[in-house]
């Protein structure tokens, strides 16, 4: 990693164990590969029974739970786990996305809820957020290489030169810096920076334009590029290639 202030880095990576309960083979494999690439230790269960058995007997830091499972459904597994006093954070992954479904999931003891199809960076961000729960990221000074941001005074400088950012550009940069090194998707930006919850709202163009403008201000005059576009996925700020 670069010399960035790692957002809320309150855990040791590599030691974290994630249980993925997902019956769709391809997705389960993608989840395992993707999470392992982020240095999580991943165990995959493909049925509700197996998931329940593993969660009940092994110590996991986090469970990623699909709701529509053969045999024992995800909600039932979750309810039983909670009844038995397991406090492991659970992130529900499902194609059901009505308000009622969400409420039901969260009421059953889930800590977060992600609707398929989801952007992988978003899953990673949510997992990070769950794992640092109780220790919110409240850093007031964010820094990446020679780019600094003071959240209180709303001052942004690069290589010592102050940069004039609009409110949205500032919020966007702050969000990116809080996820430094991690790709953020347009959905995440729409929800967290633009506060638009309706998934069908056409905001991608707005996001792309704002990112382009931000890039013109923080990157164009300088040699090293910090704000990168990951085609088809989203954006990331990081201090070098890779």
């Amino acid at each position: 990693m670069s010399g960035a202030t790692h957002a809320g880095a309150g855990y040791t990576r590599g030691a974290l164990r994630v249980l993925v309960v997902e019956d769709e083979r391809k997705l389960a494999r993608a989840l395992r590969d993707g999470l392992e690439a982020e240095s999580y230790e991943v165990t995959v269960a493909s049925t509700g029974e197996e998931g329940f058995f593993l969660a009940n007997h092994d110590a996991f830091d986090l469970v990623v739970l699909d709701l529509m499972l053969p045999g024992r459904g995800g909600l039932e597994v979750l309810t039983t786990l909670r009844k038995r006093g397991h406090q492991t954070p659970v992130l529900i992954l499902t194609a059901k996305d009505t308000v009622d479904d969400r409420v039901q999931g969260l009421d059953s003891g889930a800590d977060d809820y992600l609707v398929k199809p989801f952007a992988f960076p978003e899953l990673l961000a949510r997992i990070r957020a769950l794992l640092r729960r109780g220790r919110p990221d409240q850093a007031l000074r964010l820094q990446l290489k020679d780019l600094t941001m003071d959240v209180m005074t709303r001052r942004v400088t690069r290589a010592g030169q102050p940069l004039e950012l609009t409110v949205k550009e500032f919020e966007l940069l702050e969000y990116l810096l809080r996820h430094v090194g991690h790709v953020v998707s347009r959905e995440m930006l729409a929800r967290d920076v633009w506060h638009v919850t309706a998934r069908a709202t056409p905001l991608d163009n707005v996001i792309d334009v704002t990112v382009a403008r931000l890039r013109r201000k923080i990157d164009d005059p300088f040699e090293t590029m910090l704000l990168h576009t990951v085609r088809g996925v989203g954006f990331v700020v990081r201090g070098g290639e890779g």
Partner: protein
Amino acid sequence: MPSVRWRLTLWHAGVLALVICAFAAGIFGFVRARLYAALDRQIEVDLATIETVYREETGDLGELAHRMGVAHFEVTEGSTVVYRTPGWPPSGPAPYRVSALGDSSHHIVAARDEAMVRQTLRTLGIILAAGVPCAVALAMGGGYFLAGRMLAPVATMAETARTITAESLSARLHVENEQDEFGQLARVFNDTLARLEAAFEELRRFTADASHELRTPLAALRSVGEVALQRSLSVPAYREVIGSMLEEVGRLTHLVESLLTLTRGDSGRIRPAFEMVSLNALVGSVADNLKVLAEEKEQTLTIDAGSPVSVRCDPAILRQGLVNLLDNAIKYTPRAGAIRLSVQQRRSGEVAIEVEDSGPGIPAAHQGRIFERFYRVDDGRSRDHGGVGLGLATARWAVEANGGRVELESEHGNGALFRIVLPVPGC
């Protein structure tokens, strides 16, 4: 419950039977009274004749009795019998009608046989007793036939209706007489069929359009993947390929989300959460979000906010509608054009949000259908803009979910004005 035909017939026959019976009873009573009256009158004539003969020549009474034949009589003076026809007092199988005349000196009693009267009455009774049921039966038969004829259109309608399925919704009932009740019923039924047919047609077109729109990104996804696998590429080139495929996935996702929103709206599964919302603030914030797009195209985006206006609505849904309209306006207005947003309280009390652009406008031929799902004025151009063809449909849904409507004023070549009209606050 017997069929309508039978019920009609029975009512008809019942009423008719009642009327005929009353009529028959009336005739019988009348004829009976007249016959007896005639008989009585005849006896009175007999008495008068007897008296005359008695007064003039008592001895002739025997001849008179012989001449009168059917009549029987007795003439007495005090307790002395002057004359008595043979077999007096009359007796036998038939009853007799008796009448008397006299004073203190003499007394005359005459009787006549009622047999003829009784015979006539019996015949009449038989005729009536046989005729009434026949008439009722005839009436029933006629009624049954008529009811059948009247109800025949119902049977035809039922038969036609039975054969109508989702595939043959174009069939219509035959209307014989537009004015009568069955004609009206058939017309109502046909109107329902027409609406159903339109709805099915819309659904069919929608499904076809949706498949087409889904196929386009799928085709791109597939081709890009297949072509990339045909040869060995460098790692950055593979990244490009995967990125390009993910972009198509994004398009698919967006399309599915939009479709889901609309179908959920259709089936009433989205329950708006109403609250008092300042429209000025909402318009301001939407404009704030999208103004970068206008700035990129050097368009001027102005807001005419009059006095503050608040309405009861679901801000998230209404916002979605407004974003779609404004996004649409920015998309189709050329570089350096002008877009105007305004909020106003109308004289009718309604509240209007207007989105006016200086774009090419919408030809009149398309204005009626512009809000339909997947409807495009110009097929190629819109897809270049990245739209999926659901923006205006979503906008209309969003406004209607808030109890409002979207109006369109546009002249080809002269820009377009979309107006969200919302009902009066507090009503």
